């Protein structure tokens, strides 16, 4: 049962509760509302201004719908489009779903605590919308569902809550692009996402964030993976952002389940980024991998990772690599916790600058210093995700290359 009143009461009590990590933002500085916008048909989507569509495309969202099984678009506080072309994959605006689907009470705020901090609290009290994406049991889609969370209104706090469910034996891929119009200077994006991967299901979630210099972002997400399930989360954030803090957590609750977190980050001189990844391995035979690559460019990046092994025969690895270019600070904090015999957990962390030897090697092949450095940086940011569908790997690569071209 969905008890909105109970949730609201807990949220109200947490409205001034700072998060454990990250700068404490003053939520009163942000607007919580914006004028509603009308829904658009698929063809109307294609006639949105080119500049806006270009921004979305950079975040992996193609409004032509090519190679996608459906599209969800939220602009500021309004859902503009929501449709699926794939049998077995449903997409629904969350606010509507909360009213019509009683069973959603078993999912809504079940993995993330509504009173975790002021951001989760605010997301409940002033929820704008979000998506419910569900792959029906046994359904398999190769093409990803795409969701775009777009900010256009200056100074808005966009509150989004998403739920993604991969039912038993299903395979679901989602690309989520969060971005802003070129006009926008600043705002706050609060995104709560809860992932449910049922027995034997496979869910990959590729999130591409392209923000602007004055944006603050507070993702709050968690996943629960059942027996033999696979959850892959890719996160790319290479454009400047003022303040970003999140610590997505996956709980491997069934034997033989697997979680992989991959994040690729670049900070600008004004950035303060604190991003983690945590996996709790609760059952025998669970596997986890957390990989993070980050580049600072005068700003500050904290890359956290935590593996908690609670059962025998689990295997997990954490890899955290940081490059410092042009000043700034890069902090890597890997943590391992073993609570049972026969856990196998390891980590490697490295923070440094580009090796001069590598630059020289490429220069001996005829590249000038700048070309050599950008070639090495591209290589550093290139992450090959095991088990990721080639189409999504290509999308990930494209996101990295596209932002590199613009910023380097």
């Amino acid at each position, binding site marked *: 049962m969905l008890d909105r009143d109970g949730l609201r009461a807990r949220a109200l009590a947490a409205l001034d509760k700072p998060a454990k990590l990250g700068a404490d933002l003053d939520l009163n500085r942000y607007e919580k509302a914006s004028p509603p916008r009308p829904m658009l048909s698929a063809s109307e989507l294609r006639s949105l201004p080119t500049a806006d569509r270009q921004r979305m495309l950079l975040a992996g969202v193609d409004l032509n719908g090519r190679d996608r099984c459906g599209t969800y678009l939220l602009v500021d506080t309004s859902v503009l489009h929501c449709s699926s072309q794939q049998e077995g994959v449903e997409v629904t605006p969350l606010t509507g779903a909360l009213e019509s689907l009683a069973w959603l009470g078993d999912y809504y705020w079940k993995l993330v605590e509504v009173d975790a901090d002021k951001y989760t609290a605010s997301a409940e009290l002033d929820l704008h919308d979000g998506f419910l994406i569900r792959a029906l049991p046994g359904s398999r889609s190769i093409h990803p569902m795409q969701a775009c969370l777009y900010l256009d209104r200056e100074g808005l706090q966009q509150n989004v809550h998403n739920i993604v469910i991969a039912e038993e034996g299903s395979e679901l891929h989602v690309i989520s692009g969060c971005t802003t119009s070129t006009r926008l200077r600043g705002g706050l994006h609060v995104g709560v996402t809860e992932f449910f991967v049922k027995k034997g299901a496979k869910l990959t979630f590729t999130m591409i964030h392209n923000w602007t210099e004055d944006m603050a972002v507070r993702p709050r997400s968690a996943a629960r993976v059942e027996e033999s399930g696979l959850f892959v989360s890719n996160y790319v954030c290479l454009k400047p952002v003022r303040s970003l803090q999140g610590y997505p957590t996956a709980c491997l609750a069934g034997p033989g389940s697997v979680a992989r977190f991959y994040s690729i980050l670049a900070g600008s001189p004004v950035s303060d980024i604190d991003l983690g990844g945590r996996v709790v391995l609760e059952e025998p035979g669970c596997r986890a991998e957390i990989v993070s690559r980050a580049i600072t460019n005068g700003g500050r990046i904290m890359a956290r990772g935590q593996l908690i092994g609670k059962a025998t025969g689990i295997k997990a690895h954490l890899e955290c690599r940081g490059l410092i270019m042009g000043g700034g600070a890069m902090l890597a904090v890997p943590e391992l916790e073993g609570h049972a015999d026969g856990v196998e957990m390891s980590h490697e962390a490295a923070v440094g600058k580009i*090796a001069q*030897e*590598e630059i*020289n*090697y*490429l*220069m*001996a*092949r*005829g*590249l*000038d*210093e700048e070309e*050599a450095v950008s*070639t*090495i940086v*591209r*290589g*550093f*940011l*290139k992450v090959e995700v095991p088990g990721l569908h080639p189409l999504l790997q290509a999308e990930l690569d494209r996101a990295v290359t596209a932002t590199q071209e613009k910023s380097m």
Partner: protein
Amino acid sequence: MLVIEGLQVEVGGRMLLKRIDLEIKPGETHILFGPNGSGKTSLLMAIMGFPNYMVRGGHIYFMGREITGLPIHERARLGLGMSFQRPPTMHGLKTRQIVELCARGKVDAASLARRINMEHLLEREVNAGLSGGEIKRSELLQLMAQDPDLLLFDEPESGVDLENIALVGKTVAWMLQKDVEPAQGEPPPLRESRRQRTKMGLIITHTGHILNYLEADRGHVLFDGQLCCLGNPREILGCIGRFGYEECLRCLTATG
């Protein structure tokens, strides 16, 4: 033509190369011998322009132009190229990509790779987890793509297995236009240009195996920071093999 005059090079706070004079004319290939640690690699690195190998005196000219102070990539673009003894591993960069970078785009990486038995390694990261012999072949592949006029080889045959040694030897010979017969399936334009031999080579070798595959013009021995002898590379190799470096140098200096 490469001309080196009175070159002095400091490495790691030590004047390693005291006085190097060397001249390689178009079409010539020279062999560089010398004991371990004598500075052979350092000489090649200094010619290529690596900043850790600090030139403290003397001059390097290439094709009539002084290159002593030029950055590495400008030398590369003038036509100098090197196959490294211990190249770094380049994470996130595939061998195919570096081959394309070497050739500045215009290259059929697969067919070049086939020549040197590297086709199956094109999608691997550059030098990542490669065996000693594979690294040598990867270096040759990149150099082939780069196609420089002066080719510096740092022990191209060390660590190469018996199966591939002939392949490496013949490829080096082909790159230096020193192969006796044109290789099979070689594209005609290259064969044409071969009539007029222009490529220059400087090859460091320990074993001398490379001499079984190409006719080198001169040999040098690097000892005590100087190139102390000049002669037929096979004779020098035979002498070093029989008497060792010190004895050999005494003999050669006495007679030469």
